[in-house]
């Protein structure tokens, strides 16, 4: 049951709390765990000992119990209550005595700063000119506490009070000195981050800058491709085969599964419609043409963009962060030759092969649905396939695949090179790389469709 509550323990001394709490003892506040903690604070203002009042600046106090001192101590020990009010870590108090002496007590440390700040802003300072701050009872102080104390004193000084500090413990004196010596440099506050104006001109210059950079990258890559084609010894075969293995061979299971499922889905969706017209056999055309021309290359491209494109961007970006790219350049090597081309070549080889593989599995999926749902047997399926699905559909699909591969590899690598030594950037650029490559792949596909329909193929 006790675990539901938080406790704060305040120790009272007789005399100060005349009106509301006549006796000294231990006060225990109970809080529901969720309610805000550490907001407890007591302010006692004593003027001339004739009048005193206690403010408890606690909004979510649930219950408060008072115990005589010995019982209170025993309780706190027995239940192991958090000793917020212990000797070492007593919450800060400020007492105004005799209208001129301000007595500070408790621990002026960061955990209590909020309450201390509220306290100091709520206090009505005496109107007399000379104020004495009696700080002998401040038991603990850190930089935060020193700042609050110093700031309050400075504010009082600016209001025309003469403030003197008395009884500061020697171990805090250096801290106060540090704060006061740095105060002028600190106080003009931190400069605000300047946001660049984002007007039309800025936007245009930014985007043209990106375009120029991207074009330069494509140009550089093209030059290197021609170099390598002239001298195949320049090609990094190891890197190429490694990439082929990782981005092609290891993508087989997932590509196959997805293509198979796509075949199943298309056949299923078509089955409903075709059965209504009794045109069951046309499921072959539906599955064959849509898979060969569009679905297989697209599915493979999207998978590769997500699987390998992201890896390319992150790899190259991390190499930039760890200065590996700089090392490559200073060793007289070309990052383009070493990193980009093997990846581009690997994808140009892998993506068409994966597309063929996806074609086969997709058609198998379609054929299975056709035989189970539409009574089109395997033999019928193959027969119809031969006469209705022209070879050009297959070649159009396969022809698009290397273009997709180039788009994916180039965009991802380009984004990788754009990363600038920043962890955030790696994530952002990787995302941009994947999104842009998928976007460009689909745009390219759409353009192809339009062109092919002009040519009637």
């Amino acid at each position, binding site marked *: 049951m006790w675990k539901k509550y938080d406790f704060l323990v305040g120790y009272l001394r007789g005399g100060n709390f005349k009106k509301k709490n006549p006796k000294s003892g231990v006060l225990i506040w109970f809080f529901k765990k969720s309610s*805000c903690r*550490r907001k407890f604070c007591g302010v006692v203002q004593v003027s001339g000992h004739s009048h005193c009042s206690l403010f408890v600046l606690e909004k979510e106090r649930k219950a408060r119990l008072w115990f005589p001192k010995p019982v209170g101590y025993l309780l706190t020990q027995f239940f192991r209550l958090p000793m917020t009010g212990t000797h*070492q870590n007593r919450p800060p108090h400020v007492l105004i005595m005799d209208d001129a002496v301000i007595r500070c007590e408790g*621990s002026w*440390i*960061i*955990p209590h*700063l*909020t309450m201390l*700040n509220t306290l100091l802003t709520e206090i009505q300072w005496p109107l007399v000119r000379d104020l004495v701050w009696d700080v002998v009872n401040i*038991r*603990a*102080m*850190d*930089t*935060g506490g020193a*700042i*609050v104390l110093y*700031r309050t004193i400075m504010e009082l000084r600016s209001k025309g009070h003469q403030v003197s500090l008395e009884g500061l413990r020697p*171990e*805090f004196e*250096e*801290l106060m000195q*540090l*704060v006061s010596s*740095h105060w002028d*440099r*600190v*106080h*003009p*506050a*931190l*400069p*605000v*981050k*300047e946001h660049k104006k984002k007007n039309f001109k800025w936007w245009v210059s930014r985007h043209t800058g990106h375009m120029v950079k991207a074009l330069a990258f494509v140009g550089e890559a093209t030059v290197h491709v021609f170099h390598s084609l002239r001298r195949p010894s320049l090609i990094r075969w190891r890197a190429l085969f490694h990439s082929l293995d990782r981005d092609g061979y290891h993508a087989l299971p997932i590509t196959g599964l997805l293509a198979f499922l796509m075949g199943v889905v298309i056949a299923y969706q078509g089955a409903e419609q075709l059965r209504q017209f009794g045109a069951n056999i046309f499921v072959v055309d539906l599955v064959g043409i849509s898979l060969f021309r569009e679905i297989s290359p697209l599915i493979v491209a999207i998978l590769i963009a997500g699987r390998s494109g992201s890896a390319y961007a992150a790899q190259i970006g991390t190499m930039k962060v760890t200065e590996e790219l700089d090392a490559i350049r200073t060793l007289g090597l070309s990052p383009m030759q070493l990193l980009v081309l093997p990846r581009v070549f690997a994808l140009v080889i892998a993506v068409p092969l994966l597309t063929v593989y996806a074609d086969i599995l997709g058609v198998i999926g379609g054929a299975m649905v056709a035989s189970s749902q539409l009574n089109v047997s395997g033999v019928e399926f193959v027969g119809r396939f031969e006469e209705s699905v022209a070879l050009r559909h297959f070649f159009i699909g396969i022809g698009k695949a290397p273009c997709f591969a180039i788009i994916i590899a180039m965009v991802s690598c380009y984004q990788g090179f754009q990363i*600038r*030594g*920043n*962890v*955030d950037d790696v994530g952002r650029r990787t995302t941009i790389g994947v999104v842009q490559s998928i976007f460009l792949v689909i745009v390219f596909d759409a353009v192809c469709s339009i062109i092919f329909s002009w040519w009637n193929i």
Partner: protein
Amino acid sequence: MASGTIHHANPVIEVSHVCTRFGDAVVHEDVNLTIRPGEIFAIAGGNGSGKSTLLREIIGLHPQTEGTIRLFGQDVSVLGEHGAQNVYRRLGVMFQQGGLFSSLTLAENVAVPLKEHTDVSSELIRDIVAMKIVTVDLPMDSAGKFPSELSGGMRRRAALARAIVMDPELLFLDEPTAGLDPIIAAGFDALVLQLKAVLGLTVVMVTHDLDSLWRIADRVAVLGNGTILGVGTMHELAESSDPIIHEYFHGPRGRSAQSQYEVS
């Protein structure tokens, strides 16, 4: 917390019979250390002698294979998440590379512990952060910059500012002066001394820098061959007969650092 706790006799850190193995490689065999409150304790030793690993084990970032490590009298390895958090609030760590969050500005970096662990108002946080930035001798106009825009020395200082922003009792420095120019490194040493005086810190640092060992370390432990070869003040260690310690402190660099220290 610059409170009266400084002069307690209880050790801040107790490392007893710690062994560390990475697979077959033995890093530590029976390491014992006691670090007292209020001292600047340095862990020295050659490259690969397991200094940084020991530091990571003390902070609780890496579990030791055998033995116990007590921080503020509590065994770090058995603390739950809550207990560990309480311990972490009492210490500050400055990592070798700074460990600054690259997506936050310098000021935001320094403010992270305050924002996460306290309910201090943002206005006050700004004051405290500015005070810490000035304390570590960074110019105020660098406060809005990102870590990638700061030089290595400034990043080190920013990391120090973040480590001390909660006024911890215990400060860990991992190679604080490595890769800094001699002027800045000397400034860093002076800074650590000043912080120790003002905030009453206990400082544990891993360092190779013989100059800073002579200048600021109260006691030094030399690690080698998997154990502590010797613990003591620099003068005591300089007299040591252990061949490795002797080589460490009486190589050409060690001698020049010592003579420089003795002249000053």
